[in-house]
């Protein structure tokens, strides 16, 4: 491109080839950090890398500018290999202000690269960030490769011709920074310019132009100024052939539900109430009126749950989505769906709790609530996607199970999956299997609670079917007839039937797959979103010769039918979870197996090294055991000490 060649005297050096790069963008939540990260990610994805992202933002929409509380960040891992996580510690930190530098510097790898906006390094901003002196001069940055660039001032000059005014011109500085980063990784700005145009060109051509100019300016600045001794290049990854797009967990879930509606041949009715980090599912589905999707916002979560049940009763796919506090409100109505045996899907995008907790952070602490958080013996099915793109498949699974087995199904995602992204091989609708309800509708011998002999599901009879008029409700049902019944033995039988119906789902879901040796010293068993960190840690330990395998549960109730047998094939089992040990509790109760925990409740996903360290220590313990040392007691408190990360 001509603008990057102006003024150059020496021939360009060839970029250094690297396998993977972990880069973290950080700045004020008003600095457009999430947009910057998303654009660079898209560029990396389209360039054929495998990617994985971790956005992290404050709960406040606009915390005071320049403060540590207002720092937002976005981490991207892009690679020429198959990767499963956004990476542990960044190789490069892009900090738009001192507060961002202060917050994130400790995570940077030793000797890593720091790029800062020197225009934001002023005495006032040090004060806001709560630092005493300029970190560029007081030794804080010793040992790092530091590039301090006049980002704001050059941006202002670059976009001046557009005439946006001071404030809006300054807002383009994130694009300048992005231009610098593009240069650093041997990329032109074409894809990002296209994305900018797609977003703004029609509605706001001036903003589009200014953003493009700032981006190009950053690229040329880096090129001309030779700010870094050299640039880097990451090759394309070897992904299986196919058409790909980058997708977040919430988008994938929304698309999965649309696909489910098509596969089931039933209308999707989605009722929800806004709550972070689940709202994006509402936003995505609300746009799709032309698909006949009936998505809407209710007065509260109770109403949303009620509407989903009403829709399921009417024969539609009834769906609701929420996060922890909202799930509490839905509990009573979920019990009604258990009693009336109606197929509804409840999405819980878990966040840090209890109460309002950490609204924008991730956690897996609602597993037991999903299992048991209702009055009475009230079993439901639970699925948990293991990666952003897996949200698509599990959304379809949730409705397949709900409609085939006539029960509420929980879809336990979390903030990490919801906002994180990865490449997704786009399926064609023909690849996806159609599904439907079981149960017979014979008007002569009709009974609303007659059961399918295989699944124990009751028939999905809906209003409008002549001759099948009947009443259902939350009072205990008589086995078969469904009439109100208070008989003691009948109640017990119904409790057992409802439980058995959920257990039988195990015959209808895939067996658990083990990655690594089929038997050995250690199995690392995770569930849901911890897949990436566990898988990467086990890959690394295995390559170091350890006898370790991993498996990830995507079906939590019922468990895959081979789980018990797999547990028995390993000397030790480790369960890493972002909670205080909820799956571990279930496994110990169910299999009487002394599984160990690695538990983290910091609102942050696992880093690979955290899991790897635990694996090493457990295998080390085993060695000591062989040599006659003391074995780990396996007690809860013992686990905590071993597993807690401070």
């Amino acid at each position, binding site marked *: 491109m001509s603008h990057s060649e102006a003024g150059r005297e020496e021939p360009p050096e060839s970029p250094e080839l690297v396998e993977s790069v972990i880069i973290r963008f950080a700045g004020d939540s008003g600095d457009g950090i999430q947009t910057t990260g998303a654009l660079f990610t*898209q560029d990396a*994805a*389209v*360039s*054929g890398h495998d990617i994985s992202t971790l956005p992290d933002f404050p709960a406040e929409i606009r915390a005071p500018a320049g403060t540590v509380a207002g720092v937002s960040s976005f981490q991207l891992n892009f690679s020429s290999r198959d990767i499963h996580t956004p990476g542990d510690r960044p190789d490069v930190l892009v900090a738009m202000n001192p507060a961002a530098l202060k917050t994130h510097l400790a995570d940077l790898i030793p000797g890593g690269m720091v790029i800062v906006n020197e225009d934001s390094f002023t005495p006032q901003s040090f004060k806001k960030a709560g630092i005493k002196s300029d970190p560029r001069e007081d030794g804080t940055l010793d040992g790092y490769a530091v590039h301090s660039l006049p980002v704001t001032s050059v941006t202002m000059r670059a976009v001046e011709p557009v005439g946006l005014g001071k404030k809006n011109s300054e807002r383009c500085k994130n694009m300048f920074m992005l231009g610098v980063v593009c240069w650093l990784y041997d990329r032109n700005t074409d*894809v990002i310019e296209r994305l900018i145009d797609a977003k703004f060109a029609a509605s706001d051509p001036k903003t589009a132009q200014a953003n493009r100019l700032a981006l190009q300016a950053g690229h040329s600045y880096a090129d001309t100024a030779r700010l870094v001794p050299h640039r880097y290049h990451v090759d394309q990854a070897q992904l*299986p052939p*196919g*058409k*790909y*797009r980058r997708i977040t967990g919430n988008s994938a879930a929304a*698309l999965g539900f*649309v*696909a489910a509606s*098509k596969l089931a041949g039933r*209308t999707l*009715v989605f*009722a929800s109430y806004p709550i972070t980090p689940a709202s994006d599912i509402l936003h995505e589905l609300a746009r*799709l*009126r*032309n*698909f*006949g999707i*009936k998505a*809407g916002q*209710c*007065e*509260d979560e*109770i*109403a949303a749950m*009620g*509407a*989903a*049940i*009403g*829709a399921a*009763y*009417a*024969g*539609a796919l*009834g769906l609701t989505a929420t996060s922890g506090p909202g799930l509490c409100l839905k509990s009573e*109505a979920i*019990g*009604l769906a258990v009693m*009336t045996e109606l197929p509804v899907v409840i999405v819980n995008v878990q966040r840090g709790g209890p109460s309002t907790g950490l609204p924008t952070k991730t956690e897996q602490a609602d597993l037991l609530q999903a299992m048991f958080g209702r009055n009475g013996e009230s079993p439901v099915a639970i699925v948990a996607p293991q990666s952003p793109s897996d949200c698509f498949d599990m959304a379809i699974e949730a409705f397949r199970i709900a409609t085939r087995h006539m029960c509420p199904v929980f879809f336990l995602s979390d903030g990490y999956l919801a906002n994180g992204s990865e490449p997704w091989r*786009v*399926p*064609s*609708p023909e690849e996806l299997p159609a599904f439907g309800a079981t149960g017979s509708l014979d008007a002569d011998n009709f009974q609303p609670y007659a059961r399918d002999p295989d699944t124990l599901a009751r028939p999905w009879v809906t*209003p*409008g*079917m002549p*001759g099948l*008029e009947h*009443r*259902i*409700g*939350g009072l205990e049902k008589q086995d078969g007839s469904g*009439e*109100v019944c208070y008989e003691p033995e009948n109640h017990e039988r119904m409790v057992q039937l409802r439980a058995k119906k959920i257990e039988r789902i195990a015959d209808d879901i895939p067996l658990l797959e083990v990655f690594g040796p089929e038997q050995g010293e250690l199995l690392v068993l995770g569930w849901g979103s911890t897949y990436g960190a566990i898988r990467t840690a086990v890959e690394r330990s295995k390559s170091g010769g350890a006898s370790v395998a991993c498996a990830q549960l995507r079906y939590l109730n019922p468990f895959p039918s081979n789980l018990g047998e797999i547990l028995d094939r390993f000397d030790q089992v480790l369960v890493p979870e972002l909670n205080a040990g909820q799956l571990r509790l279930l496994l110990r109760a169910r299999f009487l197996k002394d599984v160990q925990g690695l538990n983290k409740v910091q609102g942050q996903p696992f880093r690979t090294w955290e899991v790897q360290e635990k694996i090493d220590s457990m295998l080390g313990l085993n060695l000591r055991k062989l040599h006659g040392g003391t074995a780990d007691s396996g007690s809860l408190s013992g686990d905590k000490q071993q597993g807690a990360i401070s």
Partner: protein
Amino acid sequence: MSDTFPLKYTRDDFRSDQVVRWCPGCGDYSILAQVQRVMPRICAETQTPRENIVFISGIGCSSRFPYYMDTYGFHSIHGRAPALALGLKIARPEMQVWVITGDGDGLSIGGNHLIHAIRRNIDVKILLFNNRIYGLTKGQYSPTSEIGKKTKSSPYGVIAQPVNALGLALASRATFIARTLDTDSKHLQEVLLRAAHHRGTAFVEILQNCNIFNDGAFDDIKARDVRDDRLLFLEHEKPMRFGAGGSKVLIPSGAAHDTHFAAVAEAGHGMDRALVHDEASENEGFMYALANMDYPEFPVPMGVLRAVEQATYEDLVEHQIEEARERQGPGDLQALLDAGECWTVE
């Protein structure tokens, strides 16, 4: 549609095989009987086959109602019936949905859903059985219990103001609002028929006697010897008359143009100034005053207070779907999955 509906139902077609379990003498029996009696007519006039009728209730004595109707029925959870009705109507707009609720179910625990159901104007008929008490839980005060009322949970007397259901419905912009009585079988049937014909939320308060926990709650307005003076039966485009032989009328109070407050006059003096009821009146202040009229200052308004046409929520959903399809074409799943920047790996 001019053709008569081919199906001819009788009252028995709406009786389920369940044994009715209200206390002997409960006002709910009469309401059930009138609903079952008027249903054949409703089905014929609204061209609705029985299988398209759904009764959805919350929890309470009143909410047992669906079990006794041989239609589709859903006895849900306390206060949430309007939420279920919303989902049902959005999924299947062709269903005729009746919500059965009580003064506790609809105005206390489910108050929020009631307001929002009404505000959305979903096409459901909401029958609120108001016995001014919690029947099923054996006699605690309810949001409609009068100040000073002593109940098990208010041994020193109720100290909160009661809710006027019609006022609440009006404030929520209900498109159909009516009040009737368990014991007035003819009026009850007439109001139910009107509600059935209304497209949109039809809110009907039914004054209902709980002879066990709040017996005679409405005697001071409906007893034979006082009812003429204390009940005002509203009729569209007719002067608002009451009293024996229509001896009293409602007239505007204060200045000639001030219709915000109504007053009572003997018909002889006030006839020419008698207010005429307009179900579609846009005089909100006056309608609000009318809705909230209560004994002893005023007669209690009965019948249809308000009936206006307005698009229903589910119609608007369907309309948006049609419009979106015209503008964007029908949804294409493959195109949706492919949306955004894609790339191909060979």
